[in-house]
């Protein structure tokens, strides 16, 4: 069964909360739907909440970076929130970073970050 990650809209910001582990296909599906929604609503910000994920491997990280780059090319900005501490440590050891994508502790701070720089 395929997982469809919900995309919510609050003003000009889209919020997508990944609630369970996604396969590569499901991440690609999220990527295309997020872009479609950014265009449709002229969104200026996107927050992706990965707090429920307990693994972010090299593919998952690259997909998040790709989504952020695409969003940025549309003139919007993306923030990733909720990376679990053990996930962060695994990512560092693995050698993947999100240095070009802003991150925040939780949804509130992510929204504040986008609002501040917007």
């Amino acid at each position, binding site marked *: 069964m395929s997982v469809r990650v919900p995309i919510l809209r609050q003003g000009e910001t889209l919020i997508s909360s990944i609630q369970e582990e*996604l396969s590569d296909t499901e991440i690609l599906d999220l990527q295309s739907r997020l872009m479609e929604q950014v265009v449709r609503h002229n969104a200026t910000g996107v927050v992706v909440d990965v707090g429920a994920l307990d693994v972010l*491997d*090299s593919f998952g990280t690259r997909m998040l970076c790709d989504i952020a780059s695409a969003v940025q090319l549309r003139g919007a900005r993306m923030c990733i929130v909720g990376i679990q501490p053990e996930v962060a440590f695994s990512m560092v*050891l*693995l*050698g993947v970073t999100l240095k070009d994508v802003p991150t925040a502790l939780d949804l509130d701070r992510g929204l504040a970050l986008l609002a501040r720089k917007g």
Partner: protein
Amino acid sequence: MMDGAGRGIQQIERDGDVVLARQMARQLAEEIGFSRAEQALIATAVSELARNIVNYAGSGMIAVTKNLRGRNIGLTITATDDGPGIADLDAAMVDGFSTGNSLGLGLPGTRRIMDEFEISSPPGNGLTVIATKWAFE
């Protein structure tokens, strides 16, 4: 699937199997008594190895087993496939080396995550990776 005796095997053919493999590994890691942080490391290593199978070999297998050595307990991941293998293993273990569309961090990253790491690719016999993480007291 876990067999209840500290051993689990997952066939890897589609990307959905990658998720199943890391869930299996996490379950065994938890049973063995690894911390949450170590469980995440093991699940990440399995994810990378399973993805390599899907991307480069097409099909293969991930086995996770409880490993006892002296007073240490650990978890060993064995990844095997029937793919083309890797001609230059030394190059493949360098960060950023990739023949496919990836970051090239999977194998060297997995080696950093695990305590022991062996890779072999005998010609015509695909790729085998055996990696162990010990639960140090």
